[in-house]
């Protein structure tokens, strides 16, 4: 077993200390304004959820390089357990300033839940009843999916519990679909 959870916590705090920051309220309000705009543009909660996930994906595929370059996690993760821990304790801390808890592993260790007790995205937010189907923090699912895909893990993520919808915690379920193989571009096919 490589690095322990405690040392990831420390790595996360160091990364958070180094990275440049924006004002938390500005961040929260900007995100809120963006979600509002999406609702106006798409007029359908399902489409908004999808759009948020896809925006998150596009963030994730870029953010991974900043993470790898600056987080100070020196050795590659050896298994999904370590990956989950690094996401929860280092990545969440580095980019959002909060940590998540890893829990509810399934039997064969291919799925886990991230519990977010302190989600900065939902500060000041109340969900009106007509938008009860909105997955307000669905962007986070996309970010995780995009970032892990760039390190060859195909995962699916979904919000299963949401404080805005009356649950006591935000829970994101992450499920490993496959470990991707290196595939070379078509230019390299024997012709």
């Amino acid at each position, binding site marked *: 077993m490589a690095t322990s959870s405690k040392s990831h916590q420390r790595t996360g705090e160091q990364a958070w200390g180094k990275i440049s920051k924006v004002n938390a309220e500005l961040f929260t309000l900007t995100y809120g304004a963006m979600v509002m705009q999406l609702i106006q543009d798409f007029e359908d909660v399902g489409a908004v959820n999808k759009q948020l996930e896809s925006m998150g994906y596009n963030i994730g595929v870029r953010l991974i390089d*900043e993470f*790898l370059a600056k987080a100070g996690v020196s050795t590659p993760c050896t298994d999904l357990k370590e990956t989950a821990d690094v996401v929860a304790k280092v990545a969440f801390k580095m980019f959002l300033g909060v940590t998540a808890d890893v829990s509810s592993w399934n039997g064969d260790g291919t799925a886990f839940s991230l519990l977010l007790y302190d989600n900065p995205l939902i500060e000041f937010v109340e969900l009106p009843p007509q938008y009860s189907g909105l997955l307000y923090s669905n962007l986070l699912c996309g970010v995780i999916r995009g970032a892990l895909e760039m390190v060859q893990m195909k995962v699916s993520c979904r919000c299963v519990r949401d404080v805005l919808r009356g649950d006591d915690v935000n829970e994101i379920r992450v499920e490993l679909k496959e470990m991707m193989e290196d595939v070379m571009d078509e230019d390299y096919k024997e012709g």
Partner: protein
Amino acid sequence: MIYNLYIFNRKGKCLYYREWNRPQNTLENAADDGEEQRLMFGMLYSLKEVVTKMSTDPASAGLHALKTDSYTLHHLETGSGLRFVLNTDNNAGDLRPTLRQLYSGIFVEYVAKHPQFNPVDGSPIRLPAFDSRLEEYLRSLACFKS
């Protein structure tokens, strides 16, 4: 003396190529059409297979450098599958820290954060701010010209 730089993505697409003091130039041959870049990546790809197989710990088997009589190839592969390849003469010393700085200080700031860069489709990097920052950085190194 620094000769040239390649940046490849995981699939072997050459995202970026620049050359400086390059005495023997295979690219001047117009028929090349990326052949050299493909050979370079093909070699690194095969080498990685060998390196991984021969290592006692396959999880940490990265290629650092490759040295011949006339040049040294410095290599950094990131977790996201990017490969930074810098060719120099044999007097440049260990350039791993340089490649790391190039990745975290320049690539991340000027490429990964740029809206025109698409990390998924492997289109070439054409960003003037990255060009000039990279140029400035490499020229500031003691080993650039000497």
